[in-house]
């Protein structure tokens, strides 16, 4: 009983600590200590440079270039992308910058907060871009566009710029930070394979392949196992524990009344 109440207390404390943590982490994302700075950027989805959350990116580029990075995301996490572009001197006009985030299926992801497409005046020396993503779900229907675990792509580019300013040098600082824990309930469903796109060159098949019987056997075996053993932390275990507690409490109450009456 003591251990249970202790875990309950820690869970509660963690929950309380988590709520302000997500709010506080937003304004000042800092690189994680000891992370090596990435000095590269890809130029397409396929060549996107992989970075981890908390790993700072600093790369020189040209105005008009499309810069791609990719980062892994797990269920329960909320990611935030922050970038600062140091602009070239002697530009001729205003420029609008954007950071766009796509999931592993190259589907556009919405930003819930942050200046996603800021405009810099001709005199501005830097422009700050930000995007906070939605919380990554552990499962979603195939037809939905909810954020799921897997690879995410960040594309930074200028979307509106005078043609004469194209090609001028810029410096990009980028940091992807993550908040929230990856603790999700198994009852919420689980994505069998994260949205990590294949990178190998495909092969064109000659004929429709026949269904492999081994796979079906595998499925059956796994189903049997999961069918018999309720997963840890599932509602079944909680409910059963609740029933046990209820019964114990009932008996204790009953015993108390008995003792009092016999005195």
């Amino acid at each position, binding site marked *: 009983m003591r251990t249970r109440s202790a875990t309950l207390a820690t869970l509660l404390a963690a929950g309380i600590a988590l709520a302000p943590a997500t709010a506080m982490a937003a304004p000042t994302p800092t690189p994680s200590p000891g992370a090596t700075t990435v000095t590269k950027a890809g130029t*397409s989805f396929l060549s996107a440079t992989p970075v981890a959350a908390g790993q700072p990116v600093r790369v020189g580029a040209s105005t008009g270039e499309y810069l791609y990075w990719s980062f892994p995301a797990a*269920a329960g996490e909320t990611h935030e992308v922050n970038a600062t572009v140091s602009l070239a001197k002697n530009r001729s006009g205003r420029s609008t910058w954007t950071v766009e985030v796509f999931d*592993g299926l190259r589907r*556009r992801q919405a930003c819930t907060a942050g200046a996603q497409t800021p405009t810099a005046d001709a005199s501005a020396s830097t422009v700050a871009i930000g995007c906070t993503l939605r919380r990554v779900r552990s499962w979603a229907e195939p037809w939905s566009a909810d954020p799921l675990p897997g690879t995410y792509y960040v594309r930074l580019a200028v979307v509106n710029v005078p043609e004469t300013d194209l090609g001028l040098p810029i410096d990009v600082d980028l940091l992807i930070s993550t908040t929230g824990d990856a603790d999700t309930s198994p*009852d919420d469903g689980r994505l069998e394979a994260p949205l990590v796109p294949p990178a190998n060159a495909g092969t064109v098949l000659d004929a429709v392949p026949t269904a492999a019987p081994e796979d079906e056997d595998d499925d059956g075996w796994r189903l049997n196992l999961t069918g018999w053993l309720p997963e840890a932390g599932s*509602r079944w275990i909680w409910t059963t524990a609740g029933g046990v507690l209820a019964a114990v409490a009932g008996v204790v109450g009953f015993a108390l009344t008995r003792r009092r009456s016999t005195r």
Partner: protein
Amino acid sequence: MRPEYLSSLDIATLRPVINKRWLSAVLLGLLAATALAGPAPASADEKAEPVSEPPRVQLVLDVSGSMRATDIDGRSRISVAQQAFGEVVDALPDETQLGIRVLGATYKGKDKQQGCLDTQQIVPVGPVDRDQAKAAVATLRPTGFTPVGLALREAAKDLGTGTTARRIVLITDGEDTCAPPDPCQVARELAAKGTTLVVDTLGLAPDDKVRRQLLCIAAATGGTYTAATSADDLTDRLKQLVDRARDTYTTTPAKVDGTDVCKGAPLLAPGVYTDRETFSEHRWYRVPVRAGQELRASVSVALDRPINPDHGVLLRATASDGRELVRGVDAGSGRTDVVSAGLRWSANEDGDDAERDEDATPTPSASATPAVTTVCLVVSNMFSPQAGTERNPGMPVELTVDVVAASPAPDGPDLGRGWVLLLLLTLAGLVTGLVTGLLTRWWVATWREN
């Protein structure tokens, strides 16, 4: 009395031990579950396939008469370029094969016809002899015309064909004085050929015409354009481009030709494909999906030529009878490199429907193996050409297809309602009550005895 007291104490001390074990087991299980649910850490590690070909880069340098101009940090353009080349050659990664081609380097005459054939490869693409390469660059003197289109074509030939991507870095200060061939159209044709080719352009103190031409060449091949205004800029950028060639050359998609109807469209296994699609064209592909599997597809269509500002891409998955299963769509306005859309479709959710449809319109392959559903994918674009925009070759399409295990919908929570829940609670309560009652009776009995 004493032994009984001890035994009850034993039970009392045992229970927390069991509790702790149970809890730790639950915690371990939770940890395992989260570890399983987490995604693979990074996709880049999986990209690394054993590739036999080394990265291949060709630097194409303009040595036309205008390179004599002294307007970069007070130095002549050619000397800045020569210094940058020297540093790049010094810092070249060992595995990278570098070649150098020049244009307008030898013909001193005024005959345009002859001057526009003036392009030579001074360092062949291969393992680099650093001293020899630097010496070859150092002797260059600005001379003739600017046949950019021809030089690009020759550079692509120098790099040869193969499965990995090739990169050309074009450094020039003046526009092509020899069109036709128009260098931008040449670049688009080269990119549409079998071998993946990217042209990065560097303009030395460029004017409007040069910038427009270099931007067009870069956009046509998915390359970049940089205006080099100082020697350091040029050197850093060249090094970055050569590094990039090494980092990204292995990730090349397979070429496929989509058809205009689903029937007979190419059957795709998981992987990345590339195709071309022109304005208002539809490209069909087929993907076999077994029951219990999930189809994932994404498509990117590149804007490699000037088009009107508003654009969109639609990727649809249909059953073999044309009924739509799911669609992915994205649209935008303004400057962008690619427009992408993606979709997921799971075979088991709709399995009965799909099979019934195939029975109604039997295709020979599908009726033989009803467990396999052939899903048709169709890519269409909503781009509109500007006046004078070339329609052919079509815009580059990059299609990614993956087939993975389906993720079944989680069961709704059983708490709060349902006869199963009531039965479970009653049974648990009954068992616990019985055990406690028996223990109490036994305790009362022993207490009475003493």
